[in-house]
């Protein structure tokens, strides 16, 4: 299953890459590949912007505007004029979040 075309914010910097392969290991949708020991985006539209690759890249060669693809969270964000929050947990810093029931 593939979601919308050409929307994700994933970027790789092949020059910075050391080829450690960590980003490939953590990606749940096999978005990335190694080519000549450097990272390459193999299947961009399969990316769900979870941010695992960027967070586990020791040299900062992968970047993505990470977030959770959840409509209820986006609606909560709009209602509260804040970042998306799915309301799946009670956030002590943002008690008003979670007007729309989340799902995770």
């Amino acid at each position: 299953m593939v979601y919308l075309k050409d929307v994700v914010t994933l970027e790789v910097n092949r020059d910075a890459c050391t080829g450690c392969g960590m980003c490939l290991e953590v990606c749940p949708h096999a978005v990335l590949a190694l080519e000549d020991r450097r990272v390459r985006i193999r299947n961009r539209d399969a990316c769900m912007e979870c941010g695992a690759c960027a967070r586990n890249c020791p040299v900062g060669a992968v970047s993505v505007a990470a977030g959770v693809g959840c409509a209820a969270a986006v609606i909560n964000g709009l209602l509260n004029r804040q970042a998306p929050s799915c309301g799946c947990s009670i956030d002590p810093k943002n008690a008003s979040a979670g007007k729309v029931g989340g799902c995770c």
Partner: protein
Amino acid sequence: MKWRQNDSSNEAVLFPMASPQALAAADIARPMRPPGLDQPFVNGAVEGPAGKIPRVSAKLTRRDRWGSIKARWGVGRMHYAVDPGLYALGSPDAGSPVLVTANYKMSFDRLREALPGRNAWILVLNTEGINVWCAAGKGTFGTGELVRCIAASGLKDCVGHRDLIVPQLGAPGVSAHWVRKMSGFTVHYGPIRARDIPAYLDAGRRATPGMRRKTFSLTERAVLIPMELVAALKPTALLVPLLLLVSGLGGRDAFVRNLIHDGLFSLTALLLAILSGAVLSPLLLPWLPGRAFATKGLAVGLAAAVALLSAWGMDLNSGRNLLLGGAWLLMMPGISAFLAMNFTGASTYTSLSGVRREMRWALPLEIGAGLSGLAVLLVSRFF
């Protein structure tokens, strides 16, 4: 942590190189109460260097299974948690593997039930009772909490090695290289599904490509449906009496006759719309037209509306029936599209950018269809 809130765009931007040290330094000092020995699933204790460590079994009891079922239906779900900290599965020793998980009871149970006959340490992070993947997305299953938990649990004195097995779906919150720098422990990302852990361990901590891919099979989608239904039926319960009242009022006949004729139709249409968006759309997801979830829900809702109208055998020569039918022809796809769109949060492959793109057209369409349908429904009462 490494999430910066950008107020103008409502976006969490991830800076890959930023250090989590500032947060963790203050946090590591936070003391941690050892997990309670009186929790119902604890079946004993092993002696650790700093006191008793609760022991659990890979065998789930009827109570554990009933708890999972209840959580799937949203009963007590926000408080379905185990105490965070270190647990012993079986009789682990200094060489046993350390498996990290979240303190959502269902996550904890899926992990231990996957390891019959094995001895291991289970390090449970405090994710406020949220599962690994969702908590990693929020950062509560994260570098800071992991490092804090390692220190506070006394793990270093329980094991001779410095290796942790963290679920792959915890990686959005955990930075393996920072964990190593801050705690001395090496993070090994284990398989996505707990049931693959024995094979992963036996292969010397090697995961096959299949273990690293997140699927969204029919079964995986089906178990999520009760939660979708419960969420949808709560506002519906408020709406039904109102809908019946409106159906009874106006019209040519007496209140009760109206209620039976039009009220029953409206109630059926509403429930069918919910069924379309919260049950059929998730189940039929890969076979429905379009990529956007709202498109899929719209298609199911429209099909259901057409089916209902043709099956009901309504006399469409009457102006009231025509308006009533038209109202639900608008509202059913709108409701179904909204519910299907909300299923993005439960799905395993939607991105935030994609959901935003989808919502830009879908949300106005859904609200528009709902409100205009409602207006037509009200107008129909005057015929």
